[in-house]
């Protein structure tokens, strides 16, 4: 179904259920859908599994969601940062579960979810602790680890501009995880700087086609 343009971020995050797996875009702050995360804090859904590259910076956005005890589990590649004190505290207190996933696996596992791939043999992490307990196979002389898709009930992403149908373009390295998460989320919500009329975006330059986007909001 084509996307709905929402008037408010509260409307955009309506209906997210407790226990959901929420994919949250961004790499550091670039591409991070901060207003959507704030709206999710207000919306109230809890017991969430959050999939995001990092585990929050400072005290706002994802860190604030974590601080409110609303996240049961983080799936990310790089939780530990100079300003990840909220996550660090929760983790050391045993109050949050952590699955560390190599950044490329994080991206490719979400791509697989969006592309209908059941599982894939991946060269990353062979022989390391992150491959422990996983199925291994040698193919043409190289060793691979079997990796499974990561699907989201919801994806919250930040993009640059949307048209009224939900086609998205991004800006510079703020593109990062957004396009992949848009394919892997069941309910995809995009926060953009601007919603333009349909037809204003160059069809050759659209990165996330409207088919992947359920709701957009300018924020």
């Amino acid at each position, binding site marked *: 179904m084509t996307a709905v343009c929402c008037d408010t971020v509260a409307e955009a995050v309506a209906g997210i259920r407790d226990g959901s797996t929420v994919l949250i875009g961004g790499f550091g702050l670039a591409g991070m859908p901060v207003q959507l995360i704030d709206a999710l804090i207000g919306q109230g859904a809890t017991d969430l599994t959050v999939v995001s590259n990092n585990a929050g910076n400072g005290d706002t956005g994802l860190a604030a969601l974590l601080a409110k005890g609303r996240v049961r589990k983080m799936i990310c590649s790089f939780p530990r940062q100079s300003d990840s004190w909220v996550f660090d505290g929760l983790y050391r207190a045993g109050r949050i579960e952590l699955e560390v996933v190599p950044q490329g696996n994080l991206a490719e596992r979400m791509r697989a979810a969006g592309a209908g791939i059941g599982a894939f043999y991946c060269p990353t992490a062979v022989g390391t602790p992150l491959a422990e307990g996983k199925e291994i196979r040698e193919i043409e002389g190289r060793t691979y680890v079997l990796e499974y898709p990561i699907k989201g009930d919801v994806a919250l992403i930040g993009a640059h501009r949307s048209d009224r149908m939900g086609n998205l373009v991004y800006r510079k390295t703020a593109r990062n995880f957004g396009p992949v998460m848009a394919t892997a989320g069941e309910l995809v919500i995009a926060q953009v700087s601007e919603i333009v009329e349909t037809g204003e975006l160059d069809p050759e330059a659209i990165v996330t086609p409207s088919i*992947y986007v359920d709701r957009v909001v300018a924020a």
Partner: protein
Amino acid sequence: MSLDKHEMAALVARDIRPGSFVNLGIGQPTLVADHLPADAGIVLHTENGMLNMGPAATGALIDPDLINAGKVPVTELPGSAYFHHADSFAMMRGGHLDVCVLGAFQVSARGDLANWHTGEPDAIPAVGGAMDLAVGAKNVYVMMTLFAKDGTPKLVPDCTYPLTGLGCVDRVYTDLATFVIAPEGVVVRETYGITFAELGERLAVPLLRLDG
């Protein structure tokens, strides 16, 4: 009266919800586009890498770089987007299309689809995107005549032609009746120029009547 292909296309079009993303297979299914209401915001996908495809191009609008999956020149509508083949098929196989409409040689009572190969030993096999569409779209609608030219039914207990996909067909639109492939069996939704009883006599498939 039995339906002609345009009437069948109109029936399919009527069942596609506004705002749907739809792939119309090569051949008769492309006729469905003529019956989609212009204001329904239905977006057509073509597997060679485009969303929001417009009608066939004619005259000066013909652009050799802008074709559909049947290699017919087409046009673009506002809000169209281009993408490469791996992205296009990821979109299909990942279950993002709401509906695809396909032709068929045979559909089985369980919704198996045979539409890519007649099984003749000297035929050159060619599958294209049929198998990907069959497994990928949320709803697979088949549009076909109910009987082959030699009079044999195309809705069958088991496909005898090589399969395209297993249990993937949701609805079958034919010249004589429309069917829903449901968990409990094949449900006849409407008949055209034939009675339910006659249909049951001519098909080897147990048929259920639509209640209400």
